[in-house]
């Protein structure tokens, strides 16, 4: 089940990005994305777990490129990025599952897939809402975001240090 979800995520991620680029008239670029998707599938077959990190970065860079420089339709780009995130998560999850017996595996798989699907839908929904509600992104907003981000990262670091 996890393997199927993982393969589906990779296909969905790479497919969405490729489709977005093809729609915008860049079929050459779309071909490269599909090639990368195929390489990721090959990496899954070869059990190169590290490749999931490369895949996640690649999907987000391509999505960011499409949104920033080329001004593409955001739906396909977000779908591609979320697909990459899911594939990255499921690669690690399938590795953790090696410790589980068959009985334990079924319960864990179901719970994890439900959670991750919920997160994906929620993430996609919130991202879409964020794109619909448009404010003028002026300096005040940028400053506020920077302060909030700095504060959040600081809190995160403190929290992580406490735990370790």
């Amino acid at each position: 089940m996890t393997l199927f979800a993982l393969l589906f995520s990779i296909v969905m991620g790479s497919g969405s990005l490729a489709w977005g680029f093809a729609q915008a008239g860049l079929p050459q670029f779309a071909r490269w994305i599909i090639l990368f998707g195929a390489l990721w599938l090959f990496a899954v077959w070869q059990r190169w777990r590290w490749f999931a990190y490369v895949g996640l970065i690649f999907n987000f860079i391509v999505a960011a490129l499409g949104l920033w420089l080329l001004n593409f339709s955001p739906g396909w780009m977000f779908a591609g990025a979320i697909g990459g995130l899911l594939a990255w998560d499921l690669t690690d999850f399938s590795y953790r599952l090696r410790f589980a017996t068959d009985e334990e595996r079924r319960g864990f798989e179901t719970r994890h897939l439900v959670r991750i699907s919920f997160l994906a839908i929620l993430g996609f929904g919130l991202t879409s809402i964020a794109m619909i509600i448009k404010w003028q992104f002026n300096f005040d907003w940028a400053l506020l975001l920077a302060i909030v981000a700095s504060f959040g990262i600081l809190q995160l670091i403190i929290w992580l240090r406490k735990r370790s």
Partner: protein
Amino acid sequence: MSRAFFLSLLIFVLLLAGLTALRGALLALAIPLLLYLFYGLFFGPDKVQLEVHRTLSAERVSPQTPVLVTVSVVNRGDSLESLVLDDVLSPALSVENGSNHHLISLGKNKTFTFEYILRGPRGGYALDTVRVGASDHLGLLRNTQSIHTFGQLFVFPRVTRLKQIQIRPRRTRVYAGNIPARVGGSGVEFFGVRNYQQGDSPRAINWHISARHEELYSNEFQQERVADVGIILDGRQRSNIYAGGHSLFEHSVIAAAALADSFLAQGNRVGLLVYGQYLQWTWPGYGKLQREKILHSLSHAAPGSSQVFDGLQYLPTRMFPSESQIVLVSPLMDDDYLTLVRLRARGYQVMAVSPDPVAFEESFLPRQPEVRLAARVVRIERELMLKKIQRAGVQLIEWNVAQPFDQATRRAFGQRIQGSRL
């Protein structure tokens, strides 16, 4: 790099890019990552407080005997959503049934018990660590610990019981035993005749000789005592060949175990020296405790190579009482002859038990004329060497390992052997 850190870095880069380019879409792209990260961190494990207990169905077994291991884990801390339990095993042990690792969710004060059956080859194994890894739902934060528990498994070599091995060392100890002591006194075997002394039993008087002389003579019997026996197990890599994934050394260990058991059962004081990469010495002793010590030592014995102990000339003979019995268990190399002769010259009674390396290796080779010819040549060389050793006064037991060890000793001593036991 932890997954949480990697994700945080990616979010940071996206936020930075969004703020730099003043692009809301890039900030929006960070939302799924932020959601994922916060969800993982929110449900992250706090402190891991686990109690682990392990029990084994048996701690002393013979090779490849199944052992049931039961591990129970009690969670004394908060609930753990994802907990990996890995009972760390030596690579030599194999899990036959069940699993030694699990992925579970464990609530507060809940207990999880798992069982598995393992088996393994000869050796001593410590089963003292359970590795636990607690993580959040998404595996972003991991808290890994090694919990130490008590557990050990000794896989002793199979001990074939030999009824009696006849040895006659020059010197014996003072305690009564089975070995003829070359000293007159009370015993079973006739030893000689001497003048009657006050206190001699009338039944001991030799009437035939007394009738021919004018005084009384008494029969003397040979005293039977226990002796010192030093068993030397040859663990040199070069003399213990490997063939077909099997080692001749394993057979040497079986022979050493059977001999030690037999000598101890006769009441002798037995010591063991494993001569290989280094000297592993089990101090001589008596009885069941000594048997246990020797079996422990044999369970850990492994062949090894060392420049110092490459030949037998560095055998520390001072460890063995003078004129005692030495039993060398070795496939024997050409240059071992001189060492055996030297041992004899020093007054030791020497017995050599030699697992046949030629027959052992040949059994794993294809039956071709070339192989047969080569084996024949090597066998002739070996027989010449063994004959030389026998002529030097060394008692020799040659053992074709395809047959049980008790058969080899039966041939050598013409004794009846009982069955086998651990």
